[in-house]
């Protein structure tokens, strides 16, 4: 591999608003190889906006600037909409938060998975169908033939998210952005879905950006972690040493998570320092 898979330098996203601009992402820079990068932070810290900026799917009102945005040697900044569109699904893909909303309610599972494949490959219907069924099997759905014909409202949350993963990986992208892929699921189901994701990412050697607010999941699932606050990266550290993080914000986040063995009358709240954003 020549360079890093993804190189982001000085990414800024601003949204115009009545009370002036909102700077959702400020000067974010990082590189990513074929590894797992976690992005954590509170709601509104710019995690998801960063993810969507990498897909070119922010609302038209958003203003995106960057010093560099390179994917596998391609300069994304200078590419047209059509170029970007050819990249989506095929090279970069995204698993979204809640399958209840991210699957189209009036299309069946098979149609939605095949669509992702047929948009990028010339193939017959039978080939696409076989591929979709294989993909359903790969996300550990036991009766692919049956699930193939179901509609999203007939799926449980865990099944829906497996279908989502199947749909987003069928065209074999090199980079997957997982935007809170398990936050909408029950805790018991979360682990199953994570295992499915883990296995596929490993087998296919993809790069993964895992966006989450769950520190435990991120620290056990990823190689590296970026901690974001107010659109800015506060700290970058190895996932294993997240417990030894130095930045006061990261420490505050860790402390505000409840722990079973340590009984507390009150959970610690995060004390924010405006100086972090300057």
């Amino acid at each position: 591999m020549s360079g890093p898979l993804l190189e982001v330098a000085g990414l800024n996203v601003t949204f115009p608003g009545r009370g002036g601009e909102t700077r959702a992402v400020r000067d974010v820079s990082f590189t990513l190889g074929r590894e797992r990068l976690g992005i954590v932070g509170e709601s509104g810290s710019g995690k998801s906006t960063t993810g969507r900026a990498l897909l070119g799917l922010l609302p038209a009102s958003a203003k995106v600037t960057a010093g560099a945005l390179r994917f596998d040697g391609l300069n994304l900044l200078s590419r047209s909409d059509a170029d970007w569109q050819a990249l989506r699904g095929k090279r970069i893909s995204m698993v979204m938060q809640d399958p209840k909303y991210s699957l189209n309610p009036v299309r069946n599972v098979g149609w939605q998975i095949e669509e992702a494949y047929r948009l990028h490959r010339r193939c017959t219907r039978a080939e696409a169908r076989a591929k979709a069924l294989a993909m359903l099997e790969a996300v550990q759905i036991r009766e692919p033939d049956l699930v193939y014909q179901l509609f999203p409202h007939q799926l449980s949350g865990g099944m829906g998210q497996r279908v989502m993963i199947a749909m987003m990986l069928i065209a074999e992208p090199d980079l997957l952005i997982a935007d809170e892929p398990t936050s909408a699921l029950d805790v018991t189901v979360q682990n199953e879905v994570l295992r499915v994701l883990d296995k596929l990412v490993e087998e296919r050697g993809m790069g993964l950006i895992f966006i989450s607010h769950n520190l435990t999941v991120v620290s056990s699932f990823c190689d590296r972690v970026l901690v974001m606050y107010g659109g800015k990266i506060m700290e970058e550290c190895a996932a294993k040493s997240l417990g030894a993080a130095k930045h006061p914000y990261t420490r505050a986040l860790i402390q505000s998570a409840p722990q079973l063995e340590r009984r507390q009358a009150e959970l610690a709240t995060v004390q924010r320092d405006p100086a972090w954003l300057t």
Partner: protein
Amino acid sequence: MSSSEAAPVSRSGFRTETSGARLLRLGHQLGFFLLSLAVTFLGLTAVTFFIGRFIPVDPVLAVVGDHANHDVYEKTRLAMGLDRPIIVQYVIYLKKVLAGDLGESVMTSQPVLADLLTFFPATFELATLATIFGVLIGVPAGVAAGAQKGRWPDHVVRVLGLFGYSTPVFWLGLVGLFVFYGKLGWVAGTGRLDVGYDDIVTTRTGVLLIDSALQGEWDVFRNAVGHLILPGAILAYYSLAYIARMARSFMIDQLGQEYVTAARVKGRSFWGAVWLHAFPNIMVPLITVIGLSYASLLEGAVLTETVFAWPGLGRYITQSLFNADMNAVLGGTLVVGAVFIGINAFCDFLYKIFDPRLRRA
């Protein structure tokens, strides 16, 4: 948390049906559906019957006239069965309705059914044409406006729509007649046909375009089109304005949904996501809107029919009302009610085609 075996998923709840069981289920659904239609229609006849009994118009006077003496009045009252219990009267009325006997119209001295069979097709022709054009233009316009919210196509559609539903129809009709008939001579005038073309075509369906085409009378056909075009266009404009406005807001709603973003992530183009993903999701509310708009046109667009001297249902009911011609009014009401029942039933059927969540009720 690295790779270990995840538990496979079991969904034994979704066994595939055998074809026999499927037929049986569909049969059940159809039976239930027809039964609910019958009950609704029964309710409708009850409403028209009791309206007829409780409004302060004496049905006997309507028949015998103001100057009849007491004997004649009493005889007629007994002959009409008005001395019998109200439930019995209702059953008699129901039997007559089912046999197609809606009484005689005082105004036209013809059976009400025969009147309705000539007036309703005229309205049907106009309303259907208007709705077809309203849908063909209104739906794409609304979808395009919603997809490009705040840009120029949106402004164009919104301004045209605003003009459409805020301009009085009689004004638009008169101006249209003045310009396109009076000045330019592009279209024919009022009524359904020019005088010379009357009675050439024998009435089969009552819809002139169909009857004349079936009988190969293309001169009549062309003349009928000339008469239809202006009132049809004006009603189409109204229904278009309404349909486009609703389609636009449904579309804006759906385009904000996550599954649209998901489609884009997969590599769909923006317009691909609009038509293949968002559009099928607005079908149910859109069908409702189109159904209601069509039903309200079928009920008779009184103002348009008056301006264009169109012999339609709206004018028939209104004139009967002014003449206290109760049989005609109730007959017309029955038709309007039946039209609503029919359109609702058809919409229900379409919902199930377009939304899998509504199947297997």
